[in-house]
């Protein structure tokens, strides 16, 4: 009798290069610690946090959330397309994803610009210190993610990937989703809940 065979479950590997996953785990750890520090610092500076949070720009925050989610979605479609060997469609989805990322960057720069022109800096108070650090650090990740996306976009466009060989696309996609995931927590934490 051979009942072991039946019990073998076929697991998928993590999508993309394993290296990016170790990197993602490490990055999530960094953000996790930042989020937890924020939450507990707020606990001990309740009035200050609640007061200044009102002045954050929730509208751009929300628009930016939708942009990142949508961008992530486009990148999912790009991976789907390359799995079906449709590299040009895939490149188009990637381009759309990149476009959303760029829009995010523009809105974010406008938002930062407004805060800076009000004379707000890291030293203004502990709330703004966290606000600028969290959003600023995330912002740099958006930029890095976009560089990676642009890189795989070019390669996809040149038909360097196909149904059998698209590790690169999945690698970039995984990182980009991580950037999205972090924002999904950051936005309500810093802009909304009180």
């Amino acid at each position, binding site marked *: 009798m051979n009942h072991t065979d039946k019990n073998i479950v076929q697991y998928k590997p993590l999508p993309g290069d394993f290296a990016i996953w170790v990197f993602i785990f490490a990055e999530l750890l960094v953000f996790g610690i930042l989020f937890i520090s924020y939450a507990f610092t707020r606990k001990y500076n309740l009035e200050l946090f609640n007061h200044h949070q009102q002045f954050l720009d929730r509208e751009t*925050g929300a628009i930016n959330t939708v942009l990142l989610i949508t961008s992530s979605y486009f990148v999912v479609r790009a991976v789907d397309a390359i799995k079906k060997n449709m590299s040009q469609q895939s490149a188009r989805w990637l381009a759309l994803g990149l476009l959303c990322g760029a829009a995010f960057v523009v809105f974010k720069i406008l938002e930062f610009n407004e805060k800076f022109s009000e004379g707000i800096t890291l030293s203004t108070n502990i709330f703004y210190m966290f606000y600028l650090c969290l959003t600023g650090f995330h912002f740099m990740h958006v930029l890095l993610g976009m560089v990676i996306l642009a890189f795989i976009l070019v390669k996809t466009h040149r038909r360097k990937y196909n149904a059998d060989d698209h590790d690169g696309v999945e690698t970039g996609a995984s990182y980009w989703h991580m950037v999205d995931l972090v924002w999904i927590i950051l*936005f309500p934490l810093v802009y909304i809940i009180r």
Partner: protein
Amino acid sequence: MTRFAITSSTKATLIWLLLVLLTLVTYGLGKIGYSGTFVITIVLASVLIKGHHIIADFMGLRGTEKKWRWLMQGWLLLIVAVIATAYRYS
């Protein structure tokens, strides 16, 4: 394949819709300016749902080894739980 199977693209689109909807709810709650346990619970629950789907479906962890899913979903759950604690007793 059954008749009701939906393609992975359709599924992704549905999830995208869900994510956008939840974001609008979150924003709406912020806009009204309500605060308190009730709002925080709803917002954090929506973070959990959104995060869960991004991890499982967008990042594609569904169907991978248990340890990876535990690691990622566990991270999400932990962060949200810690935030909830910090906000609950504030």
